[in-house]
C-alpha cells in the first residue's frame, strides 16, 4: 500500500499491520525479521518520513481507554487513542489536556514520540512533561514501564524518540481541571518582525500566545504579523461552557491543482487576512476548538498543496540569536517569493530532559512550502542560517534534512543512540527518517 505522512511527501510502499491488543502486538514484534525495518504509526500526522518504513505498525486498534481518575486528574489509555477522543471524554467532566498541538487528531503515542508542543510552551512545557508513565514494548517483546523515576533513561529517550526505542502500548497522562472550554482571545497587530518580538516578549505572562506572520511581506514590513494571546475564560463559569465541539467543516475532497497556490494568490490571501484581522475586535471569546485547532475544521487541508505534496519547515533558534536568524530566514524566503499561508512564530520556554525533544528556549518559526524541485536548494540555504544561529529543525515535520544538520542541532544524539542500541541492538525499529539521519 502506498503511504505518506501528512505532507504527502515522500511516499513509500509499505505493509501496514494493525495489532488489536498487546498479545497480537507481541506476536508481530517477535515474528519480525530483525534486519527488516519496522516503525509505529499513529494518526499519520507527522509531515515527512518519521512514520514511514517498509513495515508499519498502526496503533489504530490500540484505542481503548483504560482508566480515568477524575480526582487525581489522570487518564490512562492505549497509544492509539486520539487527543480528540480524550477531549471528547474529558471536557464535559471539566478536565483538559495540559498541552495540545495544532491538531487534535494526533494519537497519544504520536504525541509522546514527537514530544509535541502547543501555544503554551513558554509557560507549561511540552506534552511529555505531563506523561506520568507509559508501557513500552521493546524489540525483545518485553513490556517495560517507563517514567521519570522508573527506567528514566529509557523514558527520556522514548519521549521525543520518534518511535525508535520500541512500541508505546499505553500511557498515563496528567490532566488539568478547568471550569470553561472557552478562550478569551486578545489579538494584537505588529507591523514588522521587531514589533512582533517585542510584543511576544511583553506578553510572556499570557498563557497561550502565537503569532501569524505574513511571510510574503518585505522591506519595512518584513515580518508583519498578528499576535493571538489567549487565557482560559474562567470568569463566567457555567456548565454550558464545558461542551465538546467538533465542527466538521467542509473538507477538501481531492488534491487541488498546485498552481492555484502561487505567490500572487497567497499575497492576496495574506493581505486580506491581515487587513481583516487588523480591523476586527481585539478582544473576543472563542471556543477552544477554533483557538487551538483552526485547521481541523477543514478536512484534509493538506490536499490544498496539490498531489505533489508540501514540506513544512519548522526550526527553533535560541533567544539571543533568534531575531537575527529569523529575519535572515524571512528575507531569504520573501526574496525567493516562496511563502505560504501558514507561517507561525512562537516563543518557547525551557528545554526538558528528553534527548531528542525539539523545543528549547528561543523562538520557533513554521513555514509551509509547496513541494517543487526549486524548494530543496532554498531549504538547504535556510538550514545553514538555522545552524549558524545555533538552531535546529523539528523531526516531526522533517522530510529532507541531512544527517550533519540533524547531528549539529541535536547534541544528545549520541546518548540517544546508546540507549537505543541497548534496547534495540539490531535496530529493528527504524524509519526512512532514522535511516537518513543516522539514527538506525
Amino acid at each position, binding site marked *: *500500500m502506498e503511504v505518506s505522512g501528512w505532507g504527502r511527501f515522500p511516499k513509500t510502499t509499505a505493509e501496514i*499491520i*494493525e495489532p*488489536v*491488543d498487546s*498479545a497480537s502486538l507481541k506476536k508481530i514484534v517477535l515474528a519480525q525479521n530483525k534486519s527488516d525495518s519496522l516503525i509505529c504509526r499513529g494518526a499519520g500526522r507527522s509531515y515527512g518520513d518519521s512514520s514511514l518504513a517498509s513495515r508499519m505498525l498502526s496503533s489504530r*486498534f490500540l484505542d*481503548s*481507554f*483504560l*482508566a*480515568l481518575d477524575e480526582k487525581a486528574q489522570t*487518564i490512562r489509555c492505549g497509544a492509539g487513542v486520539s487527543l480528540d477522543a480524550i477531549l471528547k*471524554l474529558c471536557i464535559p467532566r471539566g478536565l483538559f489536556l495540559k498541552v495540545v498541538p495544532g491538531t487534535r487528531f494526533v494519537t497519544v503515542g504520536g504525541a509522546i514520540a514527537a514530544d509535541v508542543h502547543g501555544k503554551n510552551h513558554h509557560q507549561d512545557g511540552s506534552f511529555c512533561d505531563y506523561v506520568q508513565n507509559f508501557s513500552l514494548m521493546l524489540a525483545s517483546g518485553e513490556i517495560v514501564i517507563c517514567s521519570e523515576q522508573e527506567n528514566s533513561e529509557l523514558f527520556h529517550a522514548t519521549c521525543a524518540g520518534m518511535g525508535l526505542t520500541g512500541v508505546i502500548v499505553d500511557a498515563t497522562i496528567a490532566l488539568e481541571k478547568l471550569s470553561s472550554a472557552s478562550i478569551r482571545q486578545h489579538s494584537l497587530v505588529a507591523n514588522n518582525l521587531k514589533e512582533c518580538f517585542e510584543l511576544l516578549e511583553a506578553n510572556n505572562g499570557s498563557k497561550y500566545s502565537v503569532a501569524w506572520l505574513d511571510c510574503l511581506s518585505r522591506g519595512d514590513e518584513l515580518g508583519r504579523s498578528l499576535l493571538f494571546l489567549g487565557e482560559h475564560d474562567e470568569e463566567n463559569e457555567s456548565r454550558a461552557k464545558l461542551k465538546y465541539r467538533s465542527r466538521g467543516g467542509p473538507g477538501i475532497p481531492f488534491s487541488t491543482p498546485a498552481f492555484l497556490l502561487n505567490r500572487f494568490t497567497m499575497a492576496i490571501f495574506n493581505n486580506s487576512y491581515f487587513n481583516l484581522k487588523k480591523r476586527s475586535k481585539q478582544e473576543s471569546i472563542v471556543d477552544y476548538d477554533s483557538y487551538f485547532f483552526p485547521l481541523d475544521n477543514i478536512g484534509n487541508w493538506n490536499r490544498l498543496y496539490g498531489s505533489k505534496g508540501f514540506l513544512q519547515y519548522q526550526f527553533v533558534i535560541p533567544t539571543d540569536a533568534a531575531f537575527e536568524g529569523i529575519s535572515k530566514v524571512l528575507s531569504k524566503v520573501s526574496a525567493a517569493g516562496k511563502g505560504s499561508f501558514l507561517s507561525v512564530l512562537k516563543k518557547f520556554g525551557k528545554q526538558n530532559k528528553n534527548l531528542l525533544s525539539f523545543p528549547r528556549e528561543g523562538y520557533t518559526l513554521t513555514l509551509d512550502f509547496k513541494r517543487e524541485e526549486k524548494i530543496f536548494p532554498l531549504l538547504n540555504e535556510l538550514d545553514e542560517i538555522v545552524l549558524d544561529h545555533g538552531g535546529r529543525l523539528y523531526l516531526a515535520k522533517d522530510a529532507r534534512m541531512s544527517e550533519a544538520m540533524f547531528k549539529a542541532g541535536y547534541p544528545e544524539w549520541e546518548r540517544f543512540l546508546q540507549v537505543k542500541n541497548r534496547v534495540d541492538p539490531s535496530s529493528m525499529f527504524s524509519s526512512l527518517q532514522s535511516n537518513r539521519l543516522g539514527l538506525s
Partner: protein
Amino acid sequence: MNILIIGATSAIAKATARIYAERRQDLFLIARSEDRLKQLSADLTVRGAESVGYSVLDLNKFNEQEKAIDQAIGFLGTIDVVLICHGSLPNQQEAEISFRLAQKEINTNGLSVISLLTLLAEKLILQGNGTIAVITSVAGDRGRQTNFVYGAAKSMVSTYLQGLRGKLFPFNVAVVDIRPGLVDSPMTAHLKKGALWSSPDRVAGKIVRSIEKRKPTVYAPGYWRAIMLIVRLVPEFIFKRLKF
C-alpha cells in the same frame, strides 16, 4: 437500557458498544478472549457506561451458550437490545476444497448464530419486548464465486431472521438484520481497501439508529442497498461469468 453484545470484541461491536456507553447504558459482553473483554469493559466504563459485565465464551461451544445468556440476564435483569456480532472471514479457496473448513466457517457464521437466536427468542418472548439485532452481510444477498462459503452462512442467518421476525412480531420483539458492506476492520486486514470501504464507527452509528427505529433490514452504509439491488438483478447467464 440494557444491552447484550455477543462477539463484543469485534471492531463493529466495539464501536457500537462505545456509542451505548457514551449514552450511559448498562452493557453485558460475550466474547472469547478474557483479556480483550477486560480491556473493553474498562474502556466502556471510562466512556460512561452505567455498568458493564462480561462472560468469556467460545461461541462455537453451542451447549455453553445458554449459561452465558443466563449470566447476562442475571446481570442485566431484562434484555432490551441484543446485538450478535461475531463472525470470521474464511479463505474461500481453501474452504471450497476442504469441507471441514467450510463446516467450521458455517458453524461460526451461521449455526452458532441460529443456536443463539433459538435461546434468545424464547427469553424475549417471555419478556414480552426487546430487539434482536444481528450482523449478517451483503455477501449473503447473492452467492459470488469469490466468497460463497461465507455468503451461504450469512444468507442462512438472514433467511432465518426473516421468519423469526414474523414469529416474534406478536410478542413485541423486533428483529433487525444488519448487512454491512466492506468494513475496514481486523477481520478484513488482509484485503486491499478502496473507495467503497467504510469504518467500523460509521457502521456502528447506523446500527444504533436502526435498532432505535426497529428497522427490519438495513444496509450499512445505506448505499449498499443500491449496489446489492444491482448485483441481484444481473441475469444468471452473465453473473456466472463474473469473477468478483
